[in-house]
């Protein structure tokens, strides 16, 4: 295979891979961003993601409609978020520790009830072809876009607008920046955080649905490999801004697609190393962004993460 062809194959595979791999990152990151803007951190979204993947697959299999699966995943994510917020509102409870516990709990439920769904095939989400104009089958395949990806982009834009321009967005930001100010203004702080965490859980559940219903497109216990966790780091890197979450998710998606893309042209050496690329990237981004003054300035004031 000559070098030019190999390169364009890798680029096509990375583009397609990035679009596919980005979606779960994007949904979890938007959910985490919403939760953290209310002043709380939910590390349990990894568990929510796995649970969402399992419920989406199970409901899609049982009802024959993948969209019902997506909705069910969101609802279970909503419940997990509600549980997190309910425990965290008790005085003296550490939100980071609760997140770790819910990571274990969500994974436990998903594995426990997911056993019967490892074998059967559930109807998967459809995709939209946007690549016909390229006339290159590799790019056509890469541009098979899932509607959830487009919904995610629309959601990021909507959240950016809503946080800036609506009353609800303002109330959320006040709660996240200063609990005392929110209380003084008469806002129900705990209720706002509950809603922000629950809706954040809903998004993470939908992100999980993408994993099992589109790419990789089946349910098994090794489905999520820390995407939920990386999304938490991604939110710090994106400095709590929905649009920057979108860019960061694309970057992570491209990093995640590197291993499979190289494999597609026969480079199998170092497969595990390239699979670890997103974790290494996350770590370096955190080293670069966590201590910086800019990140600290943009962080919600009530967040225990950056203290």
């Amino acid at each position, binding site marked *: 295979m000559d070098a030019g062809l190999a390169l364009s194959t890798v680029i096509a595979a990375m583009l397609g891979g990035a679009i596919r791999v980005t979606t779960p990152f994007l949904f979890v990151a938007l959910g985490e961003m919403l939760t953290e803007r209310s002043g709380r951190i939910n590390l349990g979204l990894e568990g929510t993601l796995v649970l969402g993947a399992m419920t989406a697959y199970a409901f899609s299999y049982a009802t024959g409609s993948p969209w019902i699966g997506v909705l069910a995943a969101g609802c279970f994510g909503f419940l997990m978020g509600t549980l997190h917020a309910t425990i965290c509102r008790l005085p003296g409870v550490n939100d980071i520790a609760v997140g770790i516990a*819910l990571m274990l709990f969500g994974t436990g439920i998903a594995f426990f009830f997911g056993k019967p769904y490892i074998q059967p095939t559930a109807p998967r989400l459809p995709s939209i072809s946007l690549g016909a104009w390229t006339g290159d089958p590799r790019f056509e395949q890469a541009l098979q876009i899932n509607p959830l990806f487009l919904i995610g982009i629309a959601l990021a834009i909507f959240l950016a607008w809503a946080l800036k321009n609506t009353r609800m967005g303002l109330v959320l930001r006040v709660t996240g920046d200063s609990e005392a100010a929110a209380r003084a203004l008469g806002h129900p702080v705990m209720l706002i955080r509950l809603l922000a965490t629950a809706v954040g859980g809903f998004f993470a559940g939908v992100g999980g649905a993408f994993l099992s219903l589109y790419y990789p497109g089946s349910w098994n216990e090794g489905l999520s490999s*820390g995407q939920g966790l990386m999304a938490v780091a991604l939110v710090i890197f994106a400095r709590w801004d929905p649009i920057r979450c979108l860019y960061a998710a694309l970057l992570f998606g491209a990093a995640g697609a590197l291993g499979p893309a190289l494999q597609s042209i026969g480079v199998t050496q170092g497969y595990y190393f390239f699979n670890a690329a997103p974790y290494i990237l996350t770590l370096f981004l955190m080293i670069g962004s966590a201590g910086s003054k800019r990140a600290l300035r943009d962080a919600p004031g009530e967040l225990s993460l950056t203290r």
Partner: protein
Amino acid sequence: MTDIARSASAASQSVFDSDWMIRVRRGSEALAIPIAALLVSALLFSIFLLALGKSPAQFYQLIWLGGFGTGFSWSNTLLRAAPVMLTALAVAIPARLGLTMIGGEGALVLGGFTAAAIAIPMIGGGAPIVMHVLMFAGALAVGAAWVGIAGALRQFRGVNETISTLLLSYIAIAIMNFFVEGALRDPADPNKPSTKALESVEMIGKLPGIDVHWGLVFAIVACVAVYVLMFRTTFGFACKIAGGNARAALAQGLPVGRLVIVATLIAGACAGMAGYFEIAAVHGKANASLASGYGFTGILVAFLARQHPLAIMPVAILFGGIAAAGGIIQRRMGLPDATVLLLQGLTFVVLLASETFYGRLTLFNPKARTDRT
């Protein structure tokens, strides 16, 4: 509330209550609340089993039988408890400094892998003692470095230690897989990709009279040593102050940065030691089964033990027993292998919710009502 604030409020109570009475009350509080949390999660899990049409009585009977009922099950339990004690220490030591570090799994995997890699050129070389000393030192050093990185990043770059330790765990597993499936794969091994196995005579032997390896003794010694270090030395006291209020500790002239680094190095070395024994006494070679979740069970055990090194021992044995009973529960009751994981997750959630009761129950804090506004 921090420990310091707690002891401050305890001091204000001493006018009304004698000193040892407060100690007894605090001690029984630290014992009663986790036990109550355990019982509540057992109850919730029973309801869950009933809803599935399974018998809770049979479930707990099988845990007893599979974990503690016979000599065989005891050795199975202790075999699992030993690494969990060490990974729990890897959580408890940084917790004393106010750090939530959960990278035990990564340090165990990488420490174990290092031990296996060091052994490769020396297998069958006739100097098993030299080999084991080098393996042990390598595993501890790499484990220490792995958690120490997260400690340094936290101290000097402000990187959140919870997220970085978890990421480092994923990276550690990837590094092991990279070598085990590549450069260090033993071509003679017909099963899944592994490094070259130790010869069976070169493995660490069993303790006299019981079917458990020496790792258990090392784990118990480590728990006691960490207890002495963290509760009975100036180093431990300095750590506690730094964990309570880093700024106050700096004002006192305490080297907070150095304390964080040393504590995280010790924590990582504990997990690395667990990895060494998994290689030297259990598996004999490094492969994917090294990442079997001992690190994650250790997190739960450390929290349930209230981050106390001595309490870690019984709690680790309890969860070792539950894990040991997993197989028999699977076979006899037809429940999936994730049952143990689910029970652990549920216990963890209930336990953290129970943290809210510390300092609020009048039984243990006679003046609690008036203390709080």
